[in-house]
C-alpha cells in the first residue's frame, strides 16, 4: 500500500447556495488518529459523510487505499457498498435499530453483507460486545439501554465489519455528562489498539489526549492543523485562538457550540 489510507484533495460540497466544504485537503495514514474541531456548522459532519459516500462531493477527490483495493469514493461509478464495508461510522444519535437486540444490531451487517452464518455472526458479536463491557446487555433492546450503552453498541456495530477506518461524528454530544466517559473510554481503547480514526468532537481534553493530529475547521476550510500540543498550546491563527478561548471560558458549552 502506497500513500495514506484516506486522501481528500480539494473537496468542495455545497447544499444549494450554501458552500459547506470549500477545498478540503486531508490525508490520514494507517493507525493515525485525526480529530476535527470547529464550531457548529463548520462542516465537520459533512466532511465525514463525504468519506463514506453518504454525501457526494461537488469537486475534488476522495480516495480510500485499502490493502486489497483502491476506491475512489468521489467517482460516481464507485461501488459505495464496497466503500462502506471498509469505513465504519458512528453518529451522534446512535441510530441503533430499535427492533433488534444489541447482539442482532451488531450481527446484522456481518450476516447480510459478509454472508456469515447467523451462529458465527452472533458469536462474534457477543465476543465483541463482551470486549467493551456489554456482555450482560447483549440481549437487551435499544430502548432498554442507557444512552452510553447504546452508543457503545453502535461503536461495536461499526467495528463488527472490521473496517479499515472508523469515523466518529460527535458521538458524545447527545449524552448526559456522566455517560460521556464510558464512551470515550471505548474510543481510547481503539486508539491504543491502532485503529485508524477520524473524529469530530467538542471534547477538547480528550482530543488533546488521543489525537495525533488536530484540524480546526472554520466555514468549510481547514484553517489550522497540527499536533494537539501546537493547536491547543500555541494556536497561530486568530480564528483558532478565538474558538478555543470560547470553548475554554465555557461560553461555548457543548450545547452552545452544537445546538
Amino acid at each position, binding site marked *: 500500500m502506497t500513500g495514506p489510507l484516506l486522501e481528500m484533495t480539494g473537496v468542495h460540497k455545497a447544499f444549494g447556495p450554501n458552500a459547506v466544504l470549500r477545498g478540503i485537503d486531508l490525508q490520514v495514514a494507517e493507525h493515525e488518529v485525526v480529530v476535527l474541531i470547529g464550531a457548529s456548522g463548520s462542516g465537520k459532519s459533512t466532511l465525514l459523510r463525504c468519506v463514506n459516500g453518504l454525501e457526494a462531493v461537488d469537486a475534488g477527490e476522495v480516495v480510500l487505499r485499502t490493502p486489497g483495493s483502491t476506491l475512489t469514493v468521489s467517482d460516481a461509478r464507485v461501488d459505495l457498498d464496497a466503500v*462502506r464495508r471498509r469505513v465504519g461510522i458512528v453518529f451522534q444519535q446512535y*441510530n441503533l435499530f430499535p427492533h433488534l437486540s444489541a447482539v442482532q444490531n451488531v450481527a446484522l*451487517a456481518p450476516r447480510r*453483507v459478509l454472508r456469515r452464518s447467523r451462529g458465527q455472526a452472533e458469536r462474534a458479536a457477543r465476543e465483541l460486545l463482551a470486549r467493551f463491557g456489554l456482555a450482560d446487555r447483549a440481549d437487551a433492546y435499544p430502548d432498554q439501554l442507557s444512552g452510553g450503552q447504546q452508543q457503545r453498541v453502535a461503536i461495536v456495530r461499526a467495528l463488527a465489519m472490521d473496517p479499515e477506518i472508523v469515523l466518529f461524528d460527535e458521538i458524545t454530544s447527545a449524552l448526559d455528562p456522566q455517560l460521556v466517559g464510558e464512551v470515550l473510554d471505548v474510543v481510547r481503547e481503539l486508539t491504543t489498539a491502532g485503529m485508524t480514526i477520524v473524529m469530530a468532537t467538542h471534547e477538547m481534553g480528550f482530543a488533546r489526549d488521543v489525537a495525533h493530529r488536530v484540524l480546526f475547521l472554520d466555514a468549510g476550510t481547514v484553517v489550522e492543523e497540527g499536533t494537539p500540543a501546537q493547536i491547543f498550546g500555541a494556536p497561530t491563527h486568530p480564528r483558532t485562538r478565538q474558538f478555543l478561548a470560547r470553548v475554554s471560558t465555557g461560553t461555548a458549552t457543548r450545547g452552545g457550540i452544537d445546538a
Partner: protein
Amino acid sequence: MSVPQGGTTAVAAPLPYVDPVRRAAARRRTVRDALIATASLAVFVGAVALWASRLPGWPAVQASFFDGEILRSSFLPTLQALVLNIKMFLVAELLILPLGLVVALCRRSRAPVLFPLRAVATVYTDVFRGTPTLLVVFLLGFGVPALDIPGLTPEPVVWGTVALVLSYGAYVGEVFRAGIASVHPSQGMAARSLGLSQWQTSRFVVLPQAVRRVVPPLLNDFVSLQKDTALVGVLGPIEALRQAQIISYDEANFTPYVAAAVLFIALTIPLARFTDWLQARQERRTSIAGAR
C-alpha cells in the same frame, strides 16, 4: 449447571411495597367504579328502549324487524351462509397483504428504471381507491365471466373476491406506505453506512419497523373487509346477507336482516378488540420509550 445470581437473568426484584390500607381502598374504588358503570349502562339502555317502545310506529317496526319466531328460524341458515363470507375474507386477506406491500414498495421506488412500476402502482391506487368497492365487484363479477376467457373460471365468488382484493389492496398499500415513511431516514442511513444494499436496508431495517407500526390500521381495514364480503352477494353467491335477503322475501319480513347484522357484528368484534389491545400496547410502549 448452577447459574450464579446476577447473570443474564435478573435477580428477582422485591415486590413493590404498597401500604395495605391504600391497597384495600384502591380495590374498593375499582369495585365501586364497576358497579356504577353497570348501573349507568342499564339505566341508559332502559331509557332508550322505553322511549322507542312508546313511539307510535314501534309496534309496526317491531313486527317487521324484531319478530322472535323469524329471528330464530333465519339464524341458522344465515350462520351457515356466513361460512362463505369467512372463506372469502380469509383468502382475500392473504392476498391483500403481499399486494399492498408490493404496491407500497413500487410507489416508494426512486430508481429511474423502475419508473414504469411506480406509474402503474400509482394509477392502480388512484383507480381502486376512487372506485366504490361495489362497482368493482360488479365490473369484475359480471364482466370477467362474460368475456369467457378460456382457462379462467367464470365463478362469481372468485371474481367477487378478486374485486375485494384489488379494492382493499389499494388501501392497504397506502397504509404500508405511510408506515414506511414513518421510519426515520437516519435508520436507512445507518444501515447503508454498514454496507447493506438498498434492498437489504428495506428488508431488514425499514420494513420490519414499518410493519409493526401499521398492524393496528391494517387490522382496522380488515374489520371493514370482513363486512364488505357481503358485497359479493350481488353477484349471486349465497353469503350471509344474500341468504337473509332470500328469507326476508319469503317471509315478507325484515327480521332476517337483523339476524345477519348480529352475525356480522359477532364476526368483527374479536378482530376489533384485538386491534384495540394492540393499539393500547403500542401506545404504552411508545410512552415508556418517550419517558426515557
